[in-house]
């Protein structure tokens, strides 16, 4: 059944290739063990690094490198699971701690320990994966708005449900956005079994839920570029570093509402070029890459002694004690929590 279709398809692909002219592509080579001259990097759709660095990596290793981003961070592991019998690529970057244990349990990863991983805080470690960067997802406040309305900026999750903050908060949905899921995990970590009741109290207090971070931050939030009417928004602890007005920031992050997101890289099980995959992970931990992660991906570099941008030290501090949920718990309950949330709130 498949072979005639395959043949036909091959013919069509050739035709399509001919039709495409200048958008020529790399055909993948047949598998040989350990190292090939091509490397396919699978990332999520927010992956950005300066082109010079990527070119430099390709030049130093001699690989033809292809980057693919078949979706957002939330679907990355699902896509790896779906394609287990025919891997999407050699190395993956962008698996976060909400999905890390799922990835290793499903067997989509191969072991790899980078020599550069010694410089990484042990707290970030995960099975089979190498931490590359991390950041905090927190509620942000439009400081100027609170000044103008002579209202105290809220500090804790409980504050957000208080009547004086009615109709002020907008968050993105855990079902459709990665920060939304982080905030759901923060409420689970802080409230335990009462997390859904807490959401109910937020809803009763006029919570607005939108589809994605962009809608929340740019449409409904009153700070930053949004001209919205809600001064509290779900964003990142680093966001205030991007809303500077002279030497102060017009927004601030509520550091008691944060959930820590860690982004990992790993070698994909069944990779055609595992050697190259390892080299790419070492490259991500190199000082050149680590030092540009803040302005490219808005996260903190995982290697501890990397220099941070000056603004960050002042305006984008990390939470002292981010709210935590055990990875095994997340793995076991993630879908159930999202479903329960969707039924009750979304």
């Amino acid at each position, binding site marked *: 059944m498949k072979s005639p*279709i395959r043949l036909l398809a091959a013919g069509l692909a050739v035709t399509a290739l001919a039709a*495409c002219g200048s958008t020529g592509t790399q055909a993948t080579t047949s598998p040989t063990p350990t190292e090939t001259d091509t490397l396919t990097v699978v990332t999520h759709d927010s992956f950005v690094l300066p082109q010079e660095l990527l070119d430099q990596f390709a030049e130093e290793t001699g690989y033809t490198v292809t980057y693919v981003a078949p979706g957002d961070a939330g679907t990355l592991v699902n896509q790896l699971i779906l394609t287990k019998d025919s891997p*999407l690529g050699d190395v993956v970057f962008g698996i976060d701690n909400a999905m890390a244990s799922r990835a290793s349990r499903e067997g989509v990863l191969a072991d790899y320990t980078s020599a550069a991983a010694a410089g990484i805080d042990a707290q970030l470690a995960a099975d089979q994966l190498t931490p590359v960067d991390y950041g905090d997802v927190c509620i942000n406040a439009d400081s100027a708005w609170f000044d103008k309305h002579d209202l105290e900026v809220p500090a804790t999750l409980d504050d957000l449900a208080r009547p004086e903050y009615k109709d002020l908060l907008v968050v993105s949905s855990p079902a459709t956005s990665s920060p939304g899921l982080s905030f759901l995990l923060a409420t689970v970590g802080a409230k335990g079994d009462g997390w859904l009741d807490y959401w109910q109290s937020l809803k009763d207090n006029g919570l607005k839920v939108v589809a994605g971070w962009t*809608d929340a931050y740019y449409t409904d939030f009153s700070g930053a570029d949004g001209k919205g009417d809600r001064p509290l928004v779900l964003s990142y602890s680093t966001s205030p570093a991007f809303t500077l007005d002279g030497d102060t920031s017009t927004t601030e992050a509520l550091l008691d509402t944060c959930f820590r997101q860690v982004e990992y890289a790993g070698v994909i099980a069944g990779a055609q070029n595992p050697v190259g995959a390892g080299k790419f992970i070492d490259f991500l931990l190199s000082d050149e890459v680590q030092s540009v992660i803040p302005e490219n991906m808005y996260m903190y570099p995982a290697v501890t002694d990397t220099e941070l941008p000056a603004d960050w030290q002042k305006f984008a501090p990390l939470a002292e004690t981010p709210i935590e949920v055990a990875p095994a718990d997340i793995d076991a309950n993630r879908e159930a929590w999202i479903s329960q949330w969707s039924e009750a709130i979304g």
Partner: protein
Amino acid sequence: MTRLAWRAAWVAAAAIPAAFLAVFFAWPAGALILRGFHDGDAWTLAGFEAVFSSARTWRALGFTLASATATTLLCLVLGLPGAHALYRCSFPGRGFLRAAVAVPFVLPTVAVGVAFGALLRPDGLLGFLGLDGSAVSIVAAMVFFNYSVVVRTVGTMWARLDPRLAQAGTTLGAAPLRVFATVTLPALAPAVLSAASLVFLFSSSSYGIVMVLGQTRFHTIETEIWYLTTALLDLRGAAALSVTQLVIVAAALWLSGRAQSSLTRALRLQPDVASSRPLRWRRDGAALVTTLAVAVLLLGLPLIGLAWRSLHRDGVLTLANYTGLASSELPGISVLDALGTSLTTALAATAIAVPLGVLVALVASRRPRVRSGRRALAVLEGAYLLPLGVSAVTVGFGYLITLNRPPLDLRSSLVLIPIAQAVVALPLVVRSLLPTLRAIDPRQLEAAAVLGSTPFDVLRRVELPHLARGLGLAVGFAFATSLGEFGATSFLARPDRPTLPVLVFRLFGRPGAESYGQALAASVMLAGLAGITMALAERLRPREVATW
């Protein structure tokens, strides 16, 4: 050419597009749906039970049908006067208006969300209407997107109707409205139905608009499929819903096909657009006013709002967002490169979709004498429209699990993007060509045959010239669809080579005034490109029928 060879040629003409769709649409989507019916050990229908026992599913189903129906009706009510004003009357600025109404069609939903959101928010220009996050805002945005489909599909047909038919009616004393209802509308029926079924399919399978403007309060079958697939990896539930979606689409296509075949009549089409007349207030005023109102209020306001915001940074009126586009002030983001990628991809997608669409249209417009032959053609035509009604996430995930082994490991290949876009554009191409071909007066074909022309001569001298006149629209639609396509592209995107809509999406997802401003500016640029594309497509007519 012998009769047998002629037959064989037609079979080949049908087989090429069929093979293309089989490999790049049916196989991936089918493979993913089949996974949903298999739990590793045995076949199961558990997905259906689980999904249809949930009230959420029924609500989604209801909202899908209600919003798509409302959108279709509104588009027809507003689009018919638009088609009349823009294709039957000539007035200064008509060309500009024609191109302008097509712009929304290719805007990335994320930009539309920002534009509409800014208008409808409590403190926005239209905030007093209280439509923020309402079903009305979703339908309004769907009409915003699809209005031009009706205007163009119906308008190009209307422009070529023989005006003497209507004139005869008027001479015999019928009132203008009666002439319209008894002469013009029946003649236009196939194009109207064709446009209506397209709008219904587009709006029933739209994801971004419902997500962004519905603020997670409203769900459609499409958003449920995305939710089950991407958030929960519940392939069983998603498969059950995909099958449901297919059933709805097939039913809609069957209904419109039935209606079309009973209403289609041969028309004496003008060889070229000769029937535009200078505007006469008494006759055309209402249509023109309606069109201008739609253009300004529904299409203009969000677009102008978007453009206005793109000219600001940090609350100051400035061109910084546009100069920033050119100078790549953001690391790792080059809008000019993305523009190049988008144009190349769109050219490739058009080069694939238009020839295939021509083949499909030619095959589907045959007039077999046997009833079974006619049935087969109707089924064939419907099959080519299915991609419009199948969720992008189903096809996208399907690509990941099917086109994954040599010689067809295309998952990381740039070739797959124009192919996927061509799959999406093909139905539009077919729908913009078919009504013209079907409307050829059979006597013209018979006369040619009687005079000794071979079928091939008839094809070359009668049918292809007719077809060529619809080609501009087809090319325009294909190119514009590809420019704005985001759903399928996002699953195949190459982070180092993003298309413009993918880049806009990414820019909107980053903090900072520069990113936000450039996302707005890039959206405006995309809107401009769409307008230019459509304006050029208007002029794409074969030389022998040029009217200037």
